[in-house]
């Protein structure tokens, strides 16, 4: 009885297999799946063992890309909103990719697939539908070299196998020291004609390997500067938690310095109010191995602790009141520029006086002679 049942099941399975192989399903464009072959090779330099992740970001629609969840929330605040993403220049595309990399790590967005480059520096992501993907890699440290990959946008568009060359930047460094020192600095960039209107402090979040590690306050008392130490081998990210109203923010970072630049941006009439995330663009400075992240600030931001909304400078965090005693030393004699002139003014006086006296003496003499 069992043997008959097993034969029947085997027959059904065989039939299904034959049907699946011999009778192809009608494949629509949306069902196409391809493979992305990532190569970390340049000249003779092969980067093996680098961990990469791929995120599905969106798909092409009409003449633009439409971001899909969970990336759709970022799209309105990325790059140049006045033109289609297809019209962005390479720098803008690269910067947006870097920005999304920061969000993907900090906000722990779901990874579509991940893997490690093999001995040939190759990694394949399979079963990718047509669409826009973000490919990001982890920093890899090998002996005296540190490899820093850039985030890359990639579009699958009907290919069975697509190739992507992603050679990370290489930084030579000594790994002798167990600890490294990191610093973050805040810079205000105000418009020339704008009156000083700075926040009294900012809250800066320090992320260590993608996890919030520390929240620090930067203000005038510490020179908008913070320094910390950590053992080597960790990746740090820095984000300004509350971006001042009417300011844009730029994040720049090499592997030990992180710079936050707030630039005054006059409010635009068409600005939309969003809470999260701030609009962000990122540039990747190849020449200096510096990654730059720029965020366009939403017109209102939420206070990190209290949840209140900053609407104007008067509502910014209060500052401590300090009484300063100033001693004013007054001088009755105003400061003068150095006397760089020679003593010429007495010459005409002396000449005039002398000639006058001599003339008077001669006149008296003539008068005396006449008398």
């Amino acid at each position, binding site marked *: 009885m069992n043997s008959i049942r097993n034969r029947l099941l085997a027959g059904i399975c065989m039939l299904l297999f034959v049907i699946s192989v011999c009778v192809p399903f009608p494949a629509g464009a949306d069902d196409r799946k391809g493979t992305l072959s990532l190569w970390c090779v340049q000249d003779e330099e092969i980067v093996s063992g680098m961990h990469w992740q791929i995120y599905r970001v969106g798909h092409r629609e009409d003449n633009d890309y439409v971001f899909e969840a969970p990336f759709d929330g970022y799209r309105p605040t990325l790059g140049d909103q006045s033109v289609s993403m297809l019209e962005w220049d390479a720098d803008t595309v690269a910067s947006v990719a870097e920005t999304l990399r920061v969000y993907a790590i900090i906000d722990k967005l779901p990874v579509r697939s991940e893997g490690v480059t093999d001995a040939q520096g190759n990694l394949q992501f399979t079963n990718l539908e047509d669409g826009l993907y973000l490919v990001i890699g982890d920093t890899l440290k090998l002996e005296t070299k540190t490899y820093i990959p850039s985030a890359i946008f990639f579009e699958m568009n009907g290919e069975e196998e697509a190739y992507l060359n992603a050679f990370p930047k290489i*930084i030579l460094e000594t790994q002798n020291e167990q600890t490294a020192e990191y610093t973050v600095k805040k810079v205000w960039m105000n418009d020339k004609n704008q009156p000083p209107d700075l926040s009294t402090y900012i809250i800066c979040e320090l992320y260590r390997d993608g996890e919030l590690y520390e929240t620090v306050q930067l203000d005038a008392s510490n020179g908008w500067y913070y320094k910390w130490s950590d053992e080597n081998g960790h990746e740090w990210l820095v984000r300004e938690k509350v971006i001042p109203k009417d300011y844009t923010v730029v994040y720049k970072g090499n592997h030990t*310095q992180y710079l936050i630049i707030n630039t005054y941006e006059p409010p635009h009439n068409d600005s939309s109010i969003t809470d999260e995330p701030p609009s962000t663009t990122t540039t990747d400075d190849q020449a200096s191995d*510096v990654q730059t992240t720029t965020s366009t600030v939403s017109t209102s931001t939420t206070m990190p602790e209290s949840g209140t909304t900053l609407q104007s400078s008067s509502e910014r965090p209060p500052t401590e009141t300090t009484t300063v005693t100033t001693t004013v030393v007054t001088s009755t004699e105003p400061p003068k520029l150095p006397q*760089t002139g020679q003593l010429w*003014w*007495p010459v005409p006086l002396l000449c005039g006086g002398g000639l006058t006296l001599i*003339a008077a003496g*001669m006149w*008296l003499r003539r008068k005396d002679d006449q008398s």
Partner: protein
Amino acid sequence: MRAVKISCMAIGTALLLAALFLVLHNVAEDRKGGEQAEAVLSWLEQEIPEYTPTETTLTAEQYDLYAPFEERIPEMETIERDGIAYIGYVTVPALDVVLPVQSTWSMEALKTSPCRYAGNLYADDLVLCAHNYSSHFGRIHELQSGDDILFTDAKGQVHPFRVVDVEQYPGTAVEDVTFGNADEWDLTLFTCTLDGQSRVTVRVEKNEDL
């Protein structure tokens, strides 16, 4: 009556002699200042190396991310001679004048050459003062807008400027001479007028064309 007559003649002659003495003194001082400046200049021209721009390629480790945002204006290099530091020399082709410039000013220092009164060449706010010797800045009132001025720093780099304005300020106008409209000039030269009450002030801007 005779005594008055003699006194007038004697005092008048004395005053004329005093005037003559003062003129001779000033001329001698002018000439001495010129000679001293010339001596220093010939030495300085030998000491200042030929400028060769250096291109440095910064690696990521060396790249200071904060540097562009910090006002790290380098102090002007100096060359010392007999304990006196010089920051370079200034050339005024229109007046056929080339003069060394001392790093700091004092009344004694001004007898030798022009001095830095304030500012920094690299911060575009350098102010030079000098005596109004004809061999020093005595003729800068003759300069006109567009005239070239060159400043050669202690590294040998020649910084070309051109005159944008010549004006006079009272001797008490320290702020005006040193900081007034600083965005509109990069270098200032000043000296006394003949009466000593005012300062002939020449505003100079960088000449990007050269």
